[in-house]
């Protein structure tokens, strides 16, 4: 987990982080922390320790204040993941309409277990607790985009579309 690879924040990323900080009053910039972690993850795919240290620096707070937050919230990947992370909702309402079977299908299709990444580094499979699309399940989220009303056939097609690079991130 503890990668020491140094990171470089681009000028564009730094500008976005500055913008996030400026949304809050003087002295309250720490409120931008979650947004900054999201921005970093969108850029690097995951959140490494040097990334967190850099964010701590930008906010003039202790690194541990960033670690404790990044480890609390489930959206942040603290280890390297594939280019596309499929987070499949598995909570009650989605289960009622077949999320268990969908998760099994995706695992078989990509030939990976839960939390694993395909050998080409393209896909990681994770489960998520209630993603807030209960009426449109089964569903998954990838790079802030919801894919809803899924069937095994639709997921197969989705995987191909991602492989061809046809699907843009839903946000950030």
């Amino acid at each position, binding site marked *: 987990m503890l990668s020491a690879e140094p990171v470089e924040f681009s000028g564009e990323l730094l500008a976005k982080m500055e913008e996030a900080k400026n949304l809050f009053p003087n002295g309250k910039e720490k409120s931008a922390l*979650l947004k900054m972690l*999201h921005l970093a993850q969108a850029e690097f795919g995951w959140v490494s320790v040097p990334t967190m240290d850099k964010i701590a620096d930008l906010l003039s707070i202790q690194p541990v204040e960033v670690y*404790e937050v990044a480890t609390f919230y*489930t959206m942040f990947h603290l280890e390297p993941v594939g280019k596309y992370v499929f987070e499949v909702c598995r909570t009650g309402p989605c289960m*009622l309409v077949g999320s268990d079977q969908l998760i099994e299908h995706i695992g078989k299709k990509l030939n990976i277990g839960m939390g694993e990444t395909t050998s080409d580094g393209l896909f990681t499979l994770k489960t998520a607790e*209630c993603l807030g699309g209960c*009426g449109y399940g089964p569903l998954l*989220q990838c790079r802030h985009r919801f894919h809803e009303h899924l069937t095994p056939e639709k997921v197969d097609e989705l995987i191909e579309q991602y492989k061809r690079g046809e699907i843009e991130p839903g946000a950030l």
Partner: protein
Amino acid sequence: MKSRKLLLEHLDVPGIQGIETYVKQGGYTTLEKALKKMSPDEVVEEVKKSGLRGRGGAGFPTGLKWSFLAKPEGIPRYLVCNADESEPGTFKDRYLMEKIPHLLVEGMILSSYALGANTSYIYIRGEFMYVLEILQKAIQEAYAKGYLGKNIFGSGFDHDLVVTPGGGAYICGEETALLESLEGKRGNPRIKPPFPAVKGLWASPTVVNNVESIAAVVPIIRDGGDAYASIGIGKSTGTKLISACGNLARPGVYEIELGLSVEEFIYGDDYCRGIANGKKLKACVPGGSSVPILPHFLVTKTAAGENRLMTYESLADGGFQSGSMLGSGGFIVFDEDQCIVRNTWNFTRFYAHESCGQCSPCREGTGWMEKVLHRLETGKGQMHDIDLLADINKKIEGNTICPLGDAAAWPVAAAIRHFREEFEWHVTHPEEAQKRNYGLIQQPVVA
């Protein structure tokens, strides 16, 4: 019966996401009226008169909550919108924000005026990042029109509105955890008192309201509190967004007038059109995963044989013995093929995953319940496990800082109360339980 629409009235107007169309439909005229002709206290008074109750789940009267806000001189006050919609079964706020973002923006400015807040925040769950961007665009449009910023409508009222994301944590829907998160910290709920109305965001007086509650302030001020209160029954006034899911022919988000019968909501042509694939109703969780599950014979009728209505009171009729709660409006329906043990295990796994870990009864108890339920679901359970669950349950309920403990305990208690024979069948028929589901339970015959 078609329900009157107050929130989703202009849902089908093309371009309603944008400010031009929203304004053409009368958008921001309510804000203008309030800022020019009403005092902040008059706005609060109308909201009190409306009888609006918090739409996030607790159902606490919004006007009353507003009146608790401390107003010390020289200290800023804040309005925070809880858009951390995470209660399983609930997806109404996402729908409202995505489809008609300006209704929330107008509601935020209007409510902030009533509260004397010059800055407000929308805290939206991180998974809704695309909705955050829709809101951000709406906010920029409102600034460009002068509905946000300095001296709005020449009234002298200044207001700034900021939208900011969470990071994936159910607990941040609890208002003090949300405030912690909004301050850039872990989402650990705070001990109350002090309540947010006295010490909230950055220790300043703060009101936290659900998306739908804030949006409802717009039609309340437009039509007057009395007009809003004339819709509904008793203390369940106005309209409510219900997000219907599970095994329904037509799941989705519906705006209903409170007082609609549950029967019509499930089976009516204007609503869910019955159970999917012509199956039978087995059970229903009417207000989000935390509220007690009802077996089929208590869904459309109360234990006393009265028609069950979509109101705070009727859904709670019979208490936890034979009733449930309207909660957040997350209406989850189970068909005859669903396994109650599996579902209870699934929900408990959710709560075990989402416990913040601060209080031992919740942190440990949810994990134990999850393990025991998993044992029962996979045919490895014993009869005393069922009582063990009830025992753990009692040790969580009421013994935690925030309501997540109760939210985890109630569904388990209710499932055992109403479906005990199905749990027992899992113990007595472990192999069969792996192959098929129990089916419908019979209504107990009362002598």
